[in-house]
């Protein structure tokens, strides 16, 4: 089980801010493939992962980083703070 968080337009497209997911995905990229296969709203949110960022346990990571031991993963668009 892993907590999956969505922010900004990713959250809007999926219609959820957070969910717990049962997965054997080894990387964020594999998790994206699983989620996109679920429903069109997920497929729409993950259509272009080059437009997305991912954080593992609240640290920016790459889509091919290992998911082993990670408790919280977040998907969001590039940040626009400041």
């Amino acid at each position, binding site marked *: 089980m892993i907590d999956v968080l969505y*922010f900004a337009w990713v959250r809007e497209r999926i219609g959820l801010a957070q969910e717990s997911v049962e997965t054997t995905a080894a990387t964020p990229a594999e998790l994206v493939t699983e989620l996109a296969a679920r429903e069109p709203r997920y497929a729409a949110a993950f259509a272009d992962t080059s437009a997305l960022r991912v954080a593992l346990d*609240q640290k920016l990571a790459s889509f091919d980083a290992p998911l082993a031991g990670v408790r919280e993963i*977040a998907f*969001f*668009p*590039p*940040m*626009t*703070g*400041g």
Partner: protein
Amino acid sequence: MRLSIQNTPFSPAAELEGFATGHRETGAEVSFTGRVRDDTGALQALEIEHYPGMTEAAISAIMAEAATRWQLLDCLVIHRFGRLAPGAPIMMVATAARHRAEAFAAAEYLMDYLKSRAPFWKREITAEGAQWVGAKASDEDALTRW
């Protein structure tokens, strides 16, 4: 060193009161304030979403790196989230150092990293609806200078 992520308004001028006092080596202080800009007069509000927990961790790490690189005597970051009116301060950074070059460089470094590495997302609200603000390639490019 002080960091505040808050949904309440703040006054940059009031926050600067007392900043960096008590350090006799302080020769230079720089502050930056970002405000809700309304170029066309059509903006009703700016909504800012963030990632609680990661926001504080990411900005703390950026501040620690800046403090080390430029031997800062003091450092302050305030960033709002929630709904902001046009003209309202969104965020501020302040830096104190012995000389001006260090204080300026640290403030610009903090701003460049806050723009692209702190998990905030902005949405502009007008009469036509809501529009997510896109990240600018120039903001990502700005990181290459450090």
